């Protein structure tokens, strides 16, 4: 599937760079990338700029990833945007809650291009059938 506009939400500049790099290697080098430093900045950005995919960290100042996703899924214009959460935390309850909220995938750090392809259902062996 095409993800032309991707928003990366992470408070660390280095992490944002790594995420972008991984997406490039995974074949998304032509996508347009935007960045936000936390959930609040991302919500503000999304008011004016529609995107096709959001990649977000969980631990962030001002508004964490879980709150950000809940707000996102409550809003009519943004509820349908797929979200990938990247986290170093292994909290199963939160993972389950995020899935129920409609998060597309929860990936464990460190991120790799393979994990992205797998999350987006475009890994090896994945046919073009439903």
């Amino acid at each position, binding site marked *: 599937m095409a993800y032309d506009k991707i928003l990366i939400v992470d408070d660390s500049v280095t992490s944002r760079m790594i995420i972008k790099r991984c997406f490039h290697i995974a074949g998304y080098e032509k996508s347009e990338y935007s960045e936000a430093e936390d959930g609040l900045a991302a919500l503000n950005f999304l008011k004016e700029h529609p995107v096709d995919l959001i990649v977000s960290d969980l631990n962030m100042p001002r508004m964490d990833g879980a709150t950000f996703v809940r707000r996102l899924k409550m809003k009519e214009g943004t*509820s*349908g945007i797929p979200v990938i959460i990247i986290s170093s935390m292994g909290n199963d309850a939160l993972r389950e809650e995020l899935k*129920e909220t409609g998060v597309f995938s929860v990936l464990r750090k460190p991120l790799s291009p393979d994990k992205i392809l797998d999350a987006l*259902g475009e890994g090896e062996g994945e046919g073009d*059938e439903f």
Partner: protein
Amino acid sequence: MKLFEVGIGELGVSSDRESEIKTYALGSCVALVIYDKVNRIGGMIHIALPYGEINKEKAEKLPTYFADTGLPLLFKKMNEIGAKRSTSWIKLVGGASVIKSCESFDIGKRNVLAVRKILWNKKLRIVKEDVGGDYSRTVSLNIGDGSVTVSNSGKNWKI
């Protein structure tokens, strides 16, 4: 324009570009609309309840009544008539809270959550949702151009 009507707990698919698939009065039910924009093939299912285990007998007779037993059948039909996963989108409509006094037993919300969960497990994404609220929705999919129209009490809007 041919009209294929999808009843409660039913599904419909079409590759006829001169056709429309439509389902009425969703209430707490959820319609999953699927469309292959390249091959112009569409489908729709009108889901009434989240999981077949709620009523196993009914799930056997009418699997499309439930999200977990119905969605695989919709995907199977879409595969059979040539739709491709990579060129398709999915939209979700309905799941309203029609009975206010019963919020802890909010079927609409549970339907939406069940569908999201099943899609999540299949790594399929929803590009647009028009869900929740307290009003019933009617939804139609035009196979020719993939436009989805939602209506309620004489008002129409595209999603």
